[in-house]
């Protein structure tokens, strides 16, 4: 058991995608001019969402829906909405100011799609099955955290500090990454096996390659963030980025146990709880909490929490999930 755990951690550490992330990080910290054009980075992100969504949908078309789906989505929503309150309390204790603490808290309630990919990849390698509908759970966890962050922000400064107009709600609900993920999920559900056959070379076989380029880019961005952003971080706030994942994973484990999820799905839910958004939430926070400094949240979520989950967290969550799952 422990052996597998260590072996998995070691193997994750030297997986091509983690190494490409490290290469980007190193290049960026060393001030190399290596870069991925913006249009390509946006395409890679769209590609990953479509691939993840489609595969989840095709999986559901194959497995059918289990009754646990509704409960798991509910658990996801509660986690996403609840974790920001805990994160906020932690961050305030660590000395971060009200508005920045609220903004960062929003990021940690939401999820990271690439971390989701990493855990499912590890599970596949270990031959631990998980439910295809977990991608729908991931989608459901994207936004509730945003509203919690706004509620926290308003609790103190009144109506002014958080815009919650109907326009804002529509923008949140229809933001491109959610539409791409759920749209591709729906296409996968509808076309099932047949769709998978025709799209497999592009969406499945080429996926690890595209993922490596995307992670190279994430490494470059994270390095840039760390280079400029570490000055605005105190040690306790930086510590948050490595402790909060365990808190999120623990609550997720509790819910998973209550629902009775399989070991694989438990590990996925834990990883979702432990991961932090760096694509969808930042935009919402700029709109709603413009006074917050976006560099703080990005440095924490992409520069610290993301690699931590990839290398240390995921093997731990999987090990824990195997012990917890009934």
């Amino acid at each position: 058991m422990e052996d597998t755990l260590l072996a998995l951690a070691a193997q994750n550490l030297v997986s091509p995608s983690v190494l490409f992330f490290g290469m980007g990080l190193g290049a960026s910290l060393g001030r190399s001019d290596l870069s991925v054009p913006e249009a390509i980075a946006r395409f890679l992100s769209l590609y990953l969402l479509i691939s993840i969504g489609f595969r989840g949908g095709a999986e559901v078309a194959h497995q059918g829906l289990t009754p646990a789906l509704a409960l798991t989505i509910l658990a996801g929503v509660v986690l996403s909405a609840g974790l920001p309150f805990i994160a906020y309390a932690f961050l305030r204790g660590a000395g971060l100011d009200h508005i920045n603490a609220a903004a960062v808290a929003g990021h940690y309630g939401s999820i990271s799609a690439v971390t989701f990919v990493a855990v499912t990849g590890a599970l596949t390698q270990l031959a631990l099955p998980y439910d295809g509908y977990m991608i729908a759970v991931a989608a459901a966890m994207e936004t509730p955290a945003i509203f919690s962050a706004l509620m926290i922000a308003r609790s103190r400064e009144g109506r002014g500090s958080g815009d919650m107009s109907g326009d804002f709600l529509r923008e949140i609900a229809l933001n491109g990454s959610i539409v791409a993920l759920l749209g591709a999920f729906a296409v996968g559900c509808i076309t099932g096996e047949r769709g998978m056959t025709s799209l497999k070379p592009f969406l499945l076989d080429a996926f690890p390659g595209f993922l490596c380029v995307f992670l190279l880019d994430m490494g470059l961005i994270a390095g840039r963030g760390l280079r400029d952003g570490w000055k605005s971080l105190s040690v306790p706030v930086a510590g948050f980025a490595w402790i909060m994942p365990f808190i999120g994973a623990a609550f997720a484990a509790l819910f998973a146990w209550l629902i009775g999820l399989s070991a694989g799905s438990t590990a996925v839910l834990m990883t979702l709880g432990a991961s932090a958004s760096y694509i969808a939430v930042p935009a919402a926070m700029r709109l709603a909490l413009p006074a917050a400094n976006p560099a703080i949240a990005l440095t924490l979520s992409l520069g610290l929490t993301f690699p931590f989950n990839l290398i240390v967290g995921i093997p731990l969550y999987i090990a824990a999930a195997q012990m917890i799952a009934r």
Partner: protein
Amino acid sequence: MQTFAKKRIEILIERALLKRLTEKLERTGVSGYSVAPVVGGRGRAGRWEADGQVGAAAGMFVVWCIVDPVRLDELLQAVFAVVAQQVGLVSVGDVEVVRPERF
């Protein structure tokens, strides 16, 4: 050619706020505006680059708008209603145009 004096308002704005700004401009009834990409820069919030960015929060644009001088003040008011809190560098220059009826 005979030319006519107009004002050229230029606004630097974050991607996340672009839609709000352009909708605001449309509501004030400007005859038109244009949007161009900005790929990097430095301000009070430090340095940034567009390269490699993926989020809907990343990136800036420059929006410009040629208007009749009499409408300048009204437009500045509208613009500052959107950019007041966030980044948004607003500057105004003088230009001459040939077809004044367009503005």
